[in-house]
């Protein structure tokens, strides 16, 4: 079977597809997150590490690490669709980039916030200008900057291109965050995060962490697709298919009779 993928590059075709996928992703995300919470709190040891173990607060790992991964992954998605949009000039790509940005910002903030509440009991401070913390904060500002720049330009085609360029330039932060725990000289900079490898983590902790990551990922799909459908409707409101669509389920969204009379006569 051969699928013509370019068919789905049209907003009119992707709109109903996204609509059908949202509940699937949403339900799967909730189930996975609940499972991860159950496993993380009830099936894991109370201590992490050997001689100087982390106590119960290490359980923040079950949201901190997945949120930090999603913050970087969603930025890659954002910049990727921005690049596709700039190269092929496809409207849907820019719309996807815009739809992902707020969810990415939310996960970046969650990574910073949960990191602060993990840092206080383990490092003795909520915040430090450590390379990884600082670069993650800059990633958060990049998400905010992307959204602010896009909304500051009225012409949406120009806004798309300007914000896409910012997103691609901002890609430089991803390798910086990734390798920021390698501090060349401990006297000049301190890397608070320890080196970690997934293979060495206790398997129950790994199960909860990876399940939560998958849950966050599906949650991002669901929220991005809902947001994408809104963006498509707003941008394509002059096209015939949107007019037909809103006329079809107009009954559900029509304002009260009195209200609509007033608007029409005004």
């Amino acid at each position, binding site marked *: 079977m051969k699928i013509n993928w370019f068919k789905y590059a049209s907003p009119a075709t992707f709109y109903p597809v996204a609509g059908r996928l949202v509940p699937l992703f949403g339900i799967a995300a909730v189930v996975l997150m609940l499972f991860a919470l159950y496993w993380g709190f009830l099936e894991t040891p109370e201590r992490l590490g050997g001689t100087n173990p982390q106590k119960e607060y290490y359980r923040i790992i079950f949201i901190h690490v997945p949120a930090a991964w999603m913050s970087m992954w969603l930025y890659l998605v954002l910049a990727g669709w921005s690049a596709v949009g700039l190269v092929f000039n496809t409207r849907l790509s820019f719309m996807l980039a815009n739809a992902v940005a707020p969810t990415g910002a939310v996960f970046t903030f*969650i990574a910073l916030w*949960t990191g602060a509440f*993990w840092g206080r009991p383990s490092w003795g401070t909520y915040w430090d200008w450590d390379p990884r913390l600082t670069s993650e904060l800059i990633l958060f500002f990049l998400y905010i900057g992307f959204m602010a720049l896009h909304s500051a330009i009225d012409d949406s085609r120009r806004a798309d291109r300007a914000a896409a360029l910012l997103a691609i330039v901002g890609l430089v932060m991803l390798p910086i965050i990734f390798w920021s725990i390698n501090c060349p000289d401990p006297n000049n900079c301190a890397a608070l995060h320890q080196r970690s490898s997934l293979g060495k983590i206790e398997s129950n902790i790994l199960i909860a962490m990876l399940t939560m990551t998958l849950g966050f990922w599906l949650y991002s799909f669901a*929220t991005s697709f809902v947001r994408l459908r809104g963006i498509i*409707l707003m941008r394509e409101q002059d096209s015939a298919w949107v*007019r037909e669509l*809103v*006329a079809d389920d*107009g009954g559900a969204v029509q*304002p009260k009779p009195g209200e609509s009379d007033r608007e029409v006569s005004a």
Partner: protein
Amino acid sequence: MQSLLDFLHQGGYAFYVWSAFGMTFVLLVAEVVSLRRSRRTILRRVGRLARLRAQNEPSSQPSPRPSPQPTEFQR
């Protein structure tokens, strides 16, 4: 009952654990709520525009391309 209290206590680190998980929960729920509200707003707005247009150009006269209704100024 005691086990539930122990669970909530998290070995004395309840403040850190529940601050982290609570904020995550609040933010994710807030995002979903705000998405639902903005979807309703967009549907209402786009629907209103479509209805206004449908009134202005009746479908009995199909125009070859959707021309915008002349405004006060253009007339």
